[in-house]
């Protein structure tokens, strides 16, 4: 009667084996590695060719690597010693960035799991350690959304001015008042025709009539909720993109840049100690410039020979071709309000659509009228150095501020170019509202302390349980150990961030999880005390205890979920582990321990005694 069917034993066995597999990588520790990733927004990393280049470079220098791994954004090579790692970094740096002044790639020191490649290939990775354990900087940035909206309203006001002039509707002044734009008119008829013109022009504005001072009719335009949301989403995405590009420069191996809530961005830079530099880079602005290409015959050839004509500069295009660009700036990125990938309306070719504000459109119209058939270059200027993003040919005069760049682009390229154009500047200013820096020594110490507490606590519980419940105590300890195993495996699988509060949660969860086994063991003793046979006592003990275990775990889970929902930072790290631990403890305390007890006692027909410690019976 105390036997599990084969499938149940098998299932528990499989779960434990899988758990063991995914826990394994945590035991191998880490080995030094060198990581190569793209250092420029304009450069896409090609995994296979980069891998080959690293292999060749290392082979040529006679440095032995123990494996090269490629993922989406980076290629990493592993080495046996830190010495080899440093040598390799020099060699790779030299190969990939022949000009140290203008690096194309980020070559960074990193640590990689030392687990064998068959483990890595089934996606078994060690737990992802939080900044408080590995050291590094964490920033929480607040994007100034009101600022982004004001900026947009200012450019909209300028647009309206142009629109009304083009439509021949006379107004007596356009002004931004806080979060709305007020347009004054001499009479109501003018206002009505203006309203019609604006409604035809854009759907982003909500219009309302108002009588201003001096009884002048006024039109008040506010952004619709939809439009405001679009602006905010756009601002956030653009800022994240820009941050990505900038952080590449720091040479951080695994930066994390994520949206948090509606208007915040989290930046985590593991291993970075130079906080001042990190802050400088986060706060710096890049600019976008539109300039004309110098197409004077022979000028490019002369420049390639080292004689750059006066008033021009030599740049390399994305394809690798040389380009001579005039120094005079036609337009700056401030005038660009949006850039989106899309398709050409007629040819269905991939294209990039730019939107300019009113002043920008006027300049652009004039420039394009005078330069049909010539090329213009769009440059991203960062750290005083420029890069050509794209250099299209002007086909016709372009008015109205809506520009399309198309021709010989793949969809992917169109997306990239649009991203780069937007990356030109931060859409809205940002402010650091939270900062955490943890030094590397403190991180290592935290791991040690967390590990020690768990180890000694576990040892104490194990010693007590075995002394008090004998064989059943041993079973409970094995169940508790399997709980730890499954929890670590689950954390490794999910790659959830493990922090010091997370380690505390592991310890606490183990301390609480033993409750289930205590409940079961006490119940079995009680059944024995009441005169049940050993086999019946086991069955009754597990069955009766189950309801209680379920109830108590659910109440604990409610607390865990509340922490998860409302917690932030350290609390969230605690809550994730706590919740997962409650789940794994149900499995191990009930199923694993029952399986063991069944295997030990289940087949014995004439069972006289259970090894569960002394059972005292009140003598009547």
């Amino acid at each position, binding site marked *: 009667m105390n036997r599990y069917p084969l499938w149940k034993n098998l299932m528990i066995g499989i779960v434990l084996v899988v758990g063991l597999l995914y826990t394994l990588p945590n035991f191998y520790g880490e080995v030094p590695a060198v990581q190569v990733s793209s250092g420029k927004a304009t450069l896409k990393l090609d995994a296979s060719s980069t891998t080959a280049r690293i292999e060749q470079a290392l082979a040529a220098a006679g440095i032995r690597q123990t494996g090269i791994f490629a993922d989406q954004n980076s290629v990493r090579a592993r080495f046996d010693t830190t010495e080899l790692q440093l040598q390799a970094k020099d060699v790779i740096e030299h190969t990939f960035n022949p000009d140290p002044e203008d690096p194309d790639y980020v070559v960074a020191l990193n640590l990689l799991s030392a687990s064998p490649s068959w483990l890595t290939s089934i996606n078994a990775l060690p737990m992802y350690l939080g900044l408080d354990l590995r050291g590094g900087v964490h920033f929480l940035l607040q994007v100034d959304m009101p600022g982004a909206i004001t900026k947009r309203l200012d450019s909209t006001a300028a647009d309206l001015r142009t629109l009304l002039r083009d439509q021949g509707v006379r107004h007596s002044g356009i002004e931004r008042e806080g979060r709305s734009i007020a347009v004054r008119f001499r009479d109501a008829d003018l206002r009505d025709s203006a309203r019609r013109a604006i409604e035809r022009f854009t759907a982003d504005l909500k219009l309302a009539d108002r009588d201003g001072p001096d009884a002048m009719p006024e039109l008040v335009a506010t952004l619709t909720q939809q439009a405001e949301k679009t602006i905010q989403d756009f601002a956030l995405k653009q800022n994240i993109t820009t941050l990505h590009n900038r952080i590449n420069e720091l040479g951080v191996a695994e930066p994390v840049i994520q949206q948090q809530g509606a208007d915040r961005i989290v930046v985590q830079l593991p291993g970075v100690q130079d906080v001042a530099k990190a802050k400088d880079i986060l706060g710096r602005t890049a600019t976008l410039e539109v300039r004309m290409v110098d197409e004077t015959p022979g000028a490019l050839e002369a420049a390639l020979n080292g004689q750059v004509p006066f008033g021009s500069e030599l740049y390399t295009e994305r394809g690798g071709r040389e380009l001579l660009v005039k120094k005079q700036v036609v337009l700056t990125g401030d005038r660009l309000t949006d850039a989106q990938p899309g398709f050409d309306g007629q040819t269905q070719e991939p294209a990039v659509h730019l939107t300019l504000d009113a002043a920008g459109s006027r300049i652009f119209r004039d420039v394009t009228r005078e330069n049909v058939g010539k090329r213009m270059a769009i440059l991203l200027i960062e750290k005083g150095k420029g890069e050509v993003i794209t250099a299209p040919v002007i086909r016709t005069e372009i008015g109205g501020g809506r520009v399309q760049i198309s021709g010989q682009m793949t969809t992917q390229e169109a997306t990239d170019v649009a991203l780069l154009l937007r990356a030109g500047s931060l859409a809205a200013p940002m402010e*650091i509202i939270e900062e955490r820096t943890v030094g590397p020594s403190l991180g290592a110490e*935290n791991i040690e*302390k967390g590990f020690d*507490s768990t180890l000694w606590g576990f040892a104490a*519980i194990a010693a*007590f349980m075995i002394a008090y419940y004998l064989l059943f105590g041993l079973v409970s300890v094995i169940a508790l150990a399997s709980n730890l195993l499954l929890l670590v495996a689950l954390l490794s699988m999910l790659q959830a961030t493990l922090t010091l509060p997370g380690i505390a949660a592991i310890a606490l969860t183990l301390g609480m999880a033993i409750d289930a086994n205590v409940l079961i063991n006490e119940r079995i003793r009680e059944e024995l005390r009441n005169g049940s046979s050993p086999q019946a006592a086991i069955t009754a003990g597990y069955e009766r205890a189950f309801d*209680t275990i379920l109830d108590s775990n659910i*109440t604990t889970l409610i607390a865990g979920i509340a922490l998860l929902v409302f917690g932030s930072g350290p609390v969230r790290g605690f809550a994730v582990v706590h919740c997962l631990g409650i789940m794994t403890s149900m499995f191990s305390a009930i199923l694993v321990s029952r399986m063991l007890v069944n295997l030990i006692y289940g087949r014995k027909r004439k069972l006289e005694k259970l090894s569960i410690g002394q059972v005292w019976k009140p003598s009547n």
Partner: protein
Amino acid sequence: MEFFRIKNDIPFMRHALVFNVISLLTFVLAVLFLATRGLNLSVEFTGGTLVEVHYSEAPQLEPIRQALSDDGYPDAQVQNFGSARDVLIRLPNRDGLESSRVSEKVMTTLSAVDGGSPELRRVEFVGPQVGKELAADGAMALLLVVVGIMVYLALRFEWRFSVAAIIANLHDVIIILGFFAFFQWEFSLAVLAAVLAVLGYSVNESVVVFDRVRETFKKKRGMDTPEVLNHAITRTISRTVITHGSTQMMVLSMLLFGGETLYYFSLALTIGILFGIYSSVLVASPLVMWLGVSREQFIKPKQEKQEAVV
């Protein structure tokens, strides 16, 4: 080994009033301390900057205070943290101070002070708006836990149990906070997490007892309500002590080996566990009794079939 050799049920309910008076007194004291002394909230809630530095030799704190004061931080708190060689500096947020740069300036100031070069261990900067949000989120989390547990217990047992469990366990929370207010221990996010975890955990205790109460009501017809409660508590007391003992061993291990960061976290847990046993057993059960629990509530009345009228 067997710790508990209890022949007859212990008459806990005879002393129910005593337990509740003790508990009420502790509760009132805790509220008093909270009201008069308040919580020593960490930088996460108040906003401000916290810099932890490590020196190779124990530094004098006075010159550091002086230097910081001279450099425009007269309100800096400087104190040792854990050991004499570790120094913790706390700076409140102030208007007109570019707060996100404070940590760098402090490090520059510290480097200029005689007595060894400091090694930066940790910086925490929390802007004013974030601090307020964290406090609000903490309160929301507490509310969610309370409502969640009440609803669950009411569904699973009866409203009397859920009310009793929540009163008993909320009073634990207040007592933990009272301790933190009395000793002016630092109340951080981690401590808040510990408090909420304890809330979920000590409700367990009530659940275990209540489970037994329900079972006893159904099985043993001869007992009156106080007897049923006594029986349930007596039968579960060995489990209660062993479980909490085990959890406390783990927490003790954190208290001893976990270092400064986990110190207050495990301290909150310790207080919570000790008072949790007391309140969920000896406070919650009398409350259930006084709320008027009786056998009839556990025996399902036979449902009368309604005749369908055609």
